[in-house]
């Protein structure tokens, strides 16, 4: 390929159709998809899971799985027709001009080979030999901002954190200086600060490399920060395309409008209205689509929509596949926004935790996973737990539930009675009062049992019901999480992710709990499903007066549901207070950094605070203030020598920092951090 005579577009897809063969029949996944990515352009592709995003990525390099085939259209990479390449030319194109990074860095890295070897291999394949190979590998790791490349090269992938693994995967993708970089959900598995770091890296590399980028994500905010143009994919068709700010601020397709409404935005809270949802499901692959693919879910649909395929209207620099694109934003809500008035928080806390500690031993070293945590929770209130991965959120939740015993000394008091540290020693009433919705329903729901059994067993054990009474309550419960009788007979694997999570919620509510712990309950779900689950949790709370302990990486989601926030770092509470105060500030320097790391939809680029480096090891926490190694506002030696107390700055709002509250307020006014 002659790089001197560059084609106008780095990638062109023309009427591309792709099908997967399932049970002997070809089923269409991509339908006449056309799009162009200019030289040096970053193009974002968004849409619900299953709409065909990854298929696009795989098709470009003809890496489709064995049952997939291109049934029509053309692909041209830098002016070269990919369909006409022979095996050798295709191999060269893959090795030299296109690189891919997947969601799961584990996919790109071989677990049994040291990182260094995996990198040098790529250069050796490229014909470089000897000492030069090492140097190139080190340079590459430096480029992706890995601080100690020689030591990292000696390690195996599992000895690196998720963020570092993803950076190594990116380094490998960049090793042969590709002209086209395809990133398929590169940050989905990472948490907010690591995600921000990886996105920064990609943004900087864009300037250095001038590669064109196809960026695939279901996270609209991430795409809005990263890409010049965005395409919205639905059922394998492009339904809207245009410059990113234009599409996200002034969408012209009802699907885009609906997707954007599913997200809690601008600091929206549960008592200000429910989130909108998208009713129904994406059409399955291979179904015949007569009219508009979105018609069954679109509140604007009429007979014309159902019988005639809308063309891609050119609206001047942007496209929309909707007959009624000019009134797309008038799409009626699918879920009424009205909310039941929030229950008054009664004065007596349902849960009081005091001085809770948990020390694990890791290779003979003490690891303080949770240190000296004290807090209260009132009936009907939600406590949001935030912090980076490894900050002790899950451990804290497990201590409360009795799944792991805390160190001696701390107390957990539930409705006025002290809880035994171990689950076995708690009374039946105590265990049914505190239940959990786990992050991953595939792990939480026994795959051998039917949904009826799963919920029925919980009712039997937790509510002590049997026979007719159990049946009646089962039906109520199933209805209250909006499942139907049809779902009862099946096994979990036959349900979609959102439905499985509803089963898990029904099970947690079986014994009329006082407290439900939700550990990342929506992080595996699409935004439309997430919105429905968050609404469900909010509705159940206002109906049952239950309290939540809500753990999530997604700060906008935490903010939507929480009344109170605890920010954890290395097992310690750094900040605790009413949700509004914690989010709007003044806040702890760590909270400030977390909030500024969140990609925002409304591209108001505020000064970003970057947290450098990894979270320190909990076996050997920094002296003084544990955050001092990364704190952008560190004031001096005192931070390294004395651990600041968690002191009440305002009634109910405590901050663990040496900087006085008024001073924090002054400092943080200078950089107006946009709310998540």
């Amino acid at each position: 390929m002659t790089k001197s005579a560059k084609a106008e577009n780095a990638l062109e897809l023309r009427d591309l159709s792709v099908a997967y063969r399932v049970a002997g029949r070809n089923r269409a996944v991509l339908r006449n998809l056309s799009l162009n990515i200019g030289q040096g352009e970053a193009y974002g592709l968004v849409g619900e899971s299953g709409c065909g995003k990854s298929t696009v990525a795989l098709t470009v390099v003809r890496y489709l799985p064995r049952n997939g085939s291109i049934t029509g259209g053309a692909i041209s990479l830098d002016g070269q027709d990919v369909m006409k390449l022979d095996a050798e030319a295709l191999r060269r194109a893959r090795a030299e001009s296109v690189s891919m990074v997947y969601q799961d860095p584990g996919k790109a890295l071989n677990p049994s080979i040291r990182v260094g070897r995996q990198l040098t291999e790529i250069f050796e394949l490229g014909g470089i030999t000897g000492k030069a190979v090492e140097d190139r590998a080190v340079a590459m790791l430096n480029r992706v901002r890995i601080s100690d490349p020689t030591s990292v090269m000696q390690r195996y992938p599992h000895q690196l954190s998720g963020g570092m693994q993803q950076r190594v995967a990116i380094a490998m993708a960049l090793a042969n200086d590709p002209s086209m970089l395809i990133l398929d959900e590169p940050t989905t598995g990472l948490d907010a600060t690591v995600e921000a770091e990886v996105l920064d890296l990609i943004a900087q590399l864009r300037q250095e490399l001038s590669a064109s980028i196809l960026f695939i994500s279901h996270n609209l905010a991430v795409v809005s920060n990263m890409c010049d143009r965005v395409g919205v994919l639905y059922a394998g068709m492009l339904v809207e395309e245009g410059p990113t700010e234009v599409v996200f601020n002034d969408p012209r397709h009802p699907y885009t409008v609906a997707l954007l409404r599913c997200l809690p935005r601008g600091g929206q809270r549960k008592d200000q209205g429910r989130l909108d949802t998208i009713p129904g499901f994406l059409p399955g692959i291979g179904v015949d689509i007569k009219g508009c693919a979105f018609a069954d879910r679109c509140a604007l649909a009429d007979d014309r929509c159902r019988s005639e395929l809308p063309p891609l209207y050119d609206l001047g620099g942007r496209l929309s596949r909707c007959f009624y694109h000019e009134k797309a934003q008038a799409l009626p809500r699918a879920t009424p926004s009205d909310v039941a008035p929030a229950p008054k928080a009664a004065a007596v806390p349902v849960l009081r935790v005091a001085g809770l500690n948990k020390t694990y031993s890791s290779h003979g070293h003490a690891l303080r996973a949770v240190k000296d945590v004290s807090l209260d929770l009132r009936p009907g209130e939600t406590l949001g737990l935030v912090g980076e991965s490894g900050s002790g959120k899950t451990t804290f939740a497990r201590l409360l539930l009795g799944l792991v015993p805390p160190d001696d000394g701390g107390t957990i008091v539930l409705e006025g009675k002290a809880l035994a540290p171990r689950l076995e020693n708690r009374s039946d009433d105590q265990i049914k009062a505190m239940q959990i919705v786990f992050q991953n329903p595939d792990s939480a729901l026994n795959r051998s049992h039917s949904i009826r059994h799963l919920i029925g067993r919980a009712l039997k054990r937790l509510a002590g019901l049997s026979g007719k009474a159990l049946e009646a309550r089962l039906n109520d419960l199933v209805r209250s999480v909006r499942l139907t009788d049809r779902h009862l007979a099946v096994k979990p694997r036959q349900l979609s992710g959102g439905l499985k999570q509803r089963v898990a919620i029904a099970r947690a509510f079986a014994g009329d709990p006082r407290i439900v712990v939700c550990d990342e309950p929506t992080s595996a779900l699409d935004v439309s499903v997430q919105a429905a689950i968050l609404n469900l949790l909010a509705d159940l709370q206002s109906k049952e007066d239950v309290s939540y302990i809500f753990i999530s990486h997604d700060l906008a989601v935490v903010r939507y549901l929480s009344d109170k926030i605890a920010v954890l770092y290395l097992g310690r509470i750094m900040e605790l207070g009413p949700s509004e105060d914690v989010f709007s500030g003044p806040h702890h320097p760590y909270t400030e950094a977390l909030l500024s790391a969140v990609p925002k939809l409304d591209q108001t680029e505020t000064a970003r605070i970057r947290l450098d480096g990894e979270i320190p090891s909990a076996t050997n926490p920094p002296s003084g203030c544990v955050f001092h190694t990364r704190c952008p506002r560190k004031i001096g030696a005192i931070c390294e020598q004395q651990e600041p107390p968690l002191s009440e700055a305002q009634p109910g709002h405590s901050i663990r920092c040496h900087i006085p509250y008024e001073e924090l307020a002054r400092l943080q006014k200078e950089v107006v951090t946009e709310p998540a």
Partner: protein
Amino acid sequence: MSAVQTTSPTPDDTRKRGPLAEVLLSLLRSGTFLTGFAIVMFWVACALFGEHFAPYDPLADDIINALAPPSAEHWFGTDQIGRDVFSRVIVGSRDILTVAPLATLLATVAGTALGLLTGYFRGLVDDVVSRILEAFMAIPVVIVALLAIVALGTSKTTVIVVIGLSFAPIIARTVRSAVLAERELDYVAAAQLRHESAAHTMFVEILPNVIPPILVETTVRLGYAIFAVATLSFMGFGIQPPSPDWGLSISNNYGMIGGGFWWTVLFDALAIASLVIGVNLAADGVHGALND
């Protein structure tokens, strides 16, 4: 539009066949499994109905025709006292096909129980039981057999107990590692949060999910059990005369090979080999069907 309400789950997102149906289907598509299964079924049929189609009474002697070579009358020849080898091979599958599966069943039940206990309780229970099992596995089967015979006398029951107990630790090891992985899943924590008993958690929650590895291990062990039964019978510790058992027949006749009377041994040996191969093929098929 009234059709648009809150997200209403529709039935079309419940999909696919059940896992059991899928496994059965892929078994039926596996040539390996079908071949092995056909061989095993052939011998099972012989064990059940052999005497109806065996040309002679396998126990009836006919001294005049002793040691006759294979002929139209006696396809596989006759043995030292003139019994028809063909009939004996056919009916000889009966004892081994009773003893080996029962021994395997005993090994599976005992091994599964031990594996569940050690994997579920971990800690002290696991350490103690695992050490005992390891020690037990270090003793050769033959020595176990000798000791058992001293204690219990020679009988089919002894063979079943000896082989069953020798294989149990191996199955226990497989089950234990599967249970250790299951135990980390959140459904076990969810069961604890309902105050389920340990027995319920082990047998109702975990056991159904570790059936696939148990099934694979069991079919593999069945092949070894057949071989072990034949070996014990050959050494005289196993199935006792006058049964036409294959191992026993080989044991009684192998002295004849030197005299050129190969037919008294060869067909029994081939029968054992074919059954072991059949079971192993079927085991491979099961393994394949459960692991893709």
